[in-house]
């Protein structure tokens, strides 16, 4: 959609993806201004309510980025995030929220490039979808 700049909330885990974003920063890789990072200690901290609150507050997309499976600083926190996310995706279908508006992915502390790739892709996907039209009336 032309001229539309989506707002995306990215929940980044302290040990991996937040550091991954910092890595991208240190390498001065350009990333989209649409991403608003919110730091949590673990992707397993992300309550599905946060995702919905983000949408409710007019986020057009939500990312949850955690450590790669097997690498979670808290061993299994990211697997808990994966379980919730799988069920949440299914629950969101009748709400009409397009699949591309919510993403759970894995970015390690050293993957600055990957972080940038993932967020650009997400921003582009959501741009195509347009703003999230919350229910009116």
């Amino acid at each position: 959609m032309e001229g539309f700049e989506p707002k995306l909330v990215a929940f980044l885990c302290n040990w991996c993806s937040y550091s991954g974003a910092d890595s991208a920063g240190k390498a001065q890789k350009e990333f989209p201004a649409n991403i608003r990072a919110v730091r949590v200690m673990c992707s397993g901290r992300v309550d599905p309510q946060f995702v919905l609150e983000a949408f409710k507050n007019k986020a057009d997309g939500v990312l949850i980025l955690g450590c790669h499976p097997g690498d979670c600083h808290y061993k299994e926190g990211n697997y808990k995030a994966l379980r919730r996310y799988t069920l949440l995706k299914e629950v969101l279908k009748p709400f009409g929220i397009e699949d591309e508006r919510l993403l759970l992915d894995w970015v390690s502390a050293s993957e600055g490039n990957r972080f940038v790739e993932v967020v650009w892709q997400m921003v582009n996907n959501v741009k195509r979808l347009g703003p999230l039209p919350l229910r009116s009336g």
Partner: protein
Amino acid sequence: MAEQIGVYICECGPNIKDAMNIDDVADFAQQLDGVIFARIFRLLCSQEGKELIAKDVHEQGLTRVVIAACSPKEHEHTFRKVISDAGLNPYMLQIVNIREQCSWVIKDKGRATDLAKSMIKAAVYRVAHHAALETKEIEAQPDVLVVGAGITGMSAALTLAQKQRKVYLVERSPCLGGKVVRYEEVFPNLECAPCMLEPALDEVLHHERIEVLTLSEINEVLGFYGNFIVKVTKKSRLVDMQACIGCRACIEPCPVEVSDEYNESLAKRKAIYFPFAGALPNAPAIDKEHCLRFKSQECDLCQKACQFAAINYEETDQVRELNVGAIVVATGFDLFDVKNASQFGYGKIENVYTSLEFERLLSSTGHTGGEILKKDGQVPEKVALIHCVGSRSKKFHEHCSGVCCSYLVKFAHLLKQKFPEVSIVDIYSDFCLPGKQTQKSFNDFSKEQGVEFVRVNDTNDLVISEVDGKISVKYPVSGAQDDKSLEKITAGLRDLSVDMVVRLNDTNDLAINEVDGKISFKYAGSGAQDDKSLEKGTAGLRDLSVDMVVLAPAIVGAVDAQVLAQMLDLTTDENGFFNEEHSKLSPVSTTTEGIFIVGCAQGPQDIAGSVAQGQAAAGKILSRLVPGEKLTLDPCTAEVDEDLCSGCKTCIGVCIYNAVCYDEEKKRAAVNEALCRGCGVCVATCPSAAITGKHFTDEQILQEVKGVLED
């Protein structure tokens, strides 16, 4: 009282200043609710910067601080200390990452400005909901329990036994030294193992801060990091160790003979026994399972023989309760039970030995006094050494034990030393000689023997044939790129005469039988791409006739470790090794804070690796459990509100640190702050929202979300 939030925006030299309209950002921040000022400063982490913040805390009565600068991973702890020293709780701070995640990555100045404003707003909203968290301290025991008195346990104990700290060294068997003390020589330098251990054994036994508990086992472990309560049963030895001088007069008269487990059941021992010659502590033990007195029979022959009144039949088992701050698990390994792989004929054919059995044959404290003899007492003429028994095979254990190739080289060398005429067949599918010295020692031995082991790029290029009654091996020199083209290779073909080098796809595909008093085994040679197809290539079933076989079985976690794992809330993998917290970053820690796993209990490794781990765990303990100091706990932990908790127990199952427990009486969940790591998984899981994740509460995170999304 109204909030007095101070906002600081760091220019970070030109880094932030040039990337956005920083005055605009400051103006914006200034007018946010609760903000009393928004200051721009050149470099906040400088001495002047820190002094400015401290001054403002005092003079401006700041209640909360927002610092927009570099990543919190750089300086959050710095600024927490600054405000803490100035008298403000260190958690009343929120860092905004406008450098790594804004200035450095948003090229458009206008958009960077907007993003910075948005991030600062979110931080102001969040910090307004921060609580003043206090670092808690708990009493902690500096003493440590080490389970297992092998080389690893002893290393850990010796490193740990410092002033004001006691180490309890609990050992299941009657003696110290584990497996290593029962070897003769160890690779790569072939130093004498018992001699190498002698100083450590001596120090451990006489150390005033190490209490050795032999014949002891752990029954129960309660408590948590800093405060473990461990019940240990010290089984009665029935020998007074103070009185006994180790003269061995009691051994001879004993009428009972049983299989000797310390000589890998190759020999017999009495019911009163020394595990092996030179075992320390230097006193025998009575095996209550086989001693006649415990089978309701009269016998006091050993007591009668003792001139020092050291035998005490009345001694009972003792239960000790140890209060320790940390536990080091050094329970070592067992070998894969080769009886589960019948193709090797182990247990059925005589003179087929495991490596541990062979070590006892080699050892001067063994039942043959170091003579390598067949069961019939004869010297072997042809010995086969087989790698990877039960190892590196999907049929048994997939892992490589990392030390067997090395010790088989050692065996080959020692055999040749004792019997220069002996013929050695080394059957392997790969050679693994890691580390600084092993490969080199291997090369040296080979030179001595006149045996040249040759590394080939692709063993499928070997052409093994019989020439003049000896086996000739043709191999291409390194550099041959195309392994399919043998014509190219003939140019560089070398002929080599060795006794025999046989490469197999899987050494577990052997079949060993006894034929006419000799050991015969069949194997499928490599060269055949498909093990099952014997028509291809020059491979086929070969028959080989030897006198003695030494097997290198897979190293697995000690079989009894499972019981201990249960008690300590540890998990083991499919090979019996305890699971570490993180394979690279925390190899000796476990998810149970305060419990460490070291040596072969953690994974198969050589002596150097084991000792390093023992000392590493000691290091970790020494740095946090400091005698006289309390254990400080990170305050960003979870907390259950009992008024909201319904006792649904959903949180209990999600905590891998066992930090959330269910109180059966109150029917409520509770978090142990000493064990909680603050991950927040239970917080997100609680269906009643009854658990607060301190410093990452729902409200704080939602305020941040709200702040970044507002226009």
